[in-house]
């Protein structure tokens, strides 16, 4: 393929490297050296990728976690353009400001629907295993080009703005990434097998409704703990879904899987461990209550979990 995911790994790596350099020079940051170290190490993960020896990458991840955990990753005080100036610019540029913002979804859609199978010569244009991500990367680059053309700012200014947003989100940027690592380690260590053993031994799964409820609630609870539905699914499907719902009650595995994953997503709506969805927006939207987004989601997540139990009970033999 011509455009692969590696291109965007390099771009993100360079963005983190730039973040590190700008942080070293940021006099407003009380912890600029350690903060720069944190972003610099993360840059290495993207720039070197698979070329890093696995043990080195592991050490790197632990060092990053310790630096962040010790409170040594802090944001600086970014110089913000005054609101009057932004308002004047908004009036001057008008709807044209929306064009680059909408270019990201437009190019993503174009790439993943229309350019999916396009070849140039004998080579595929886009990486077939990561069409959506690669198209979105192209869209982001196109959006930056359009934004620069519109505002007559340089791409470097774009990098500065990206750094401002990364700096504001701080270590929360790496939390979902580290949770995914924990999920993979759990799988390797046999946590799924252990949960299966406990669930089949101790839960009263001899009524079909109770088994459905245990399965859906288990998915949601485990996701609340892990912050990640992908980690919960193998554990609860292997522990209750397959041996009990499919094995004992002969449920349709497709129904069990689909509704199980959606029950896990109800859990994702309720947990601060899903930082990308529930913590990052709190920071992005300047909300003082850390759990504001989760509280807004509870009246949807809880009734929906109940609905999932009923749906699974009614549809499992289809």
């Amino acid at each position, binding site marked *: 393929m011509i455009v692969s*995911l590696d291109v*965007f790994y390099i771009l993100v790596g360079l*963005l983190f490297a730039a973040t590190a350099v700008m942080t070293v020079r940021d006099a407003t940051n009380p912890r600029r050296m350690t903060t720069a170290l944190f972003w610099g190490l993360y840059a290495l*993960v993207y720039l070197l990728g698979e070329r890093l020896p*696995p*043990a*080195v*990458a592991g*050490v790197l*991840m632990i060092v990053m976690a*310790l630096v962040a955990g010790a409170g040594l990753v802090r944001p600086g005080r970014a110089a913000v353009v005054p609101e009057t100036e*932004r308002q004047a*610019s908004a009036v001057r540029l008008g*709807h044209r400001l*929306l064009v*680059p913002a909408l270019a*990201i979804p437009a190019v*993503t859609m174009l790439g*993943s629907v229309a350019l999916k199978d396009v070849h140039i010569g004998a080579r595929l244009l886009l990486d077939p295993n990561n069409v*959506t991500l690669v198209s979105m990367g192209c869209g982001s680059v196109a959006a930056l080009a359009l*934004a*620069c053309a519109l*505002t007559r*700012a340089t791409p470097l200014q774009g990098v500065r*703005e990206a750094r401002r947003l*990364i700096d504001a989100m701080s270590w929360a*940027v*790496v*939390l*979902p990434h580290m949770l*995914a*690592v*924990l999920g*993979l*380690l759990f799988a390797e*260590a046999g946590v799924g097998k*252990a949960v299966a*053993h406990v669930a089949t031994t101790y839960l009263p799964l001899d009524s079909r409704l109770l088994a459905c409820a245990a399965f859906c609630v288990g998915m949601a609870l485990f996701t609340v703990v892990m912050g990640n539905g*992908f980690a919960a*699914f*193998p554990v609860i499907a292997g522990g209750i879904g*397959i041996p009990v719902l499919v094995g004992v009650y002969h449920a349709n*595995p*497709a129904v069990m*899987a*689909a509704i199980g994953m959606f029950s896990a*997503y109800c859990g994702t709506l309720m947990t601060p*461990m899903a*930082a990308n969805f*529930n913590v990052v*927006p709190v920071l*992005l*939207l300047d*909300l003082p209550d850390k759990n*504001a*987004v989760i509280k*807004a989601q509870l009246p949807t997540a809880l009734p*929906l979990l109940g*609905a999932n139990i009923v749906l699974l009970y009614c549809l499992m033999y*289809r």
Partner: protein
Amino acid sequence: MHTAVNLWPLLGIAVVTAGFLLRLHPVLVVIAACAVTGWAAQMPVMHMLESLGRAFIKTRNLPLILLLPLAAIGLLERFGLKEHAQASVARIRSATTGRLLTVYLLAREVAAAFGLTSLGGHPNMVRPLVAPMAEAAAEARHGTLPEPLRRHIRAMSAATDNVGLFFGEDIFVAFGAIVLMQTILKTEGLDVDPIRMALWGIPTAVTAFVIHAWNLRRLDARIRRETAR
């Protein structure tokens, strides 16, 4: 039933739960859980470091969706994107906050169902567009909002994005979750067509839309109630 199942790796879950309840630094909780899990599974230290490293490199595609649009969006914000969005919606007199967010919920869910999960998102849609638009819609009808209400509207904007994304994406056949489910079921000896799993997600997806749209109607009622005083 006495099988040789090693229950000690469950300690990893206990560590995550305890750390989460004690509100310790989440990144430290994750690392501690990794260490305890590896120790409980009797992994040698070197083996554990390698597993961590391999997983860290393999999953580095996850943060891309968040990171890639930042440069363009940051630049547009500097030149008044948020201010423009607010001004545009303030001109649409008919839109209430709840109706606006319901339209966004539908668009987000349908787009995600077609696999276009990156069409929305907190840094590239909610922060610059949806949240300011939702606030502006309420302000255009009711004037200045009390601060707690304003914050609740912002939180509901983020919530709407999440609900639309989560319950749309799972209907898309090529989405990662479907691939994951198929792989897991296959290792357990169940061969399931991914299209069937996607189809059986539809009843929940529709229910999610109905429940959240109802909550957005309640949001409109709350805005009317709290601004009437």
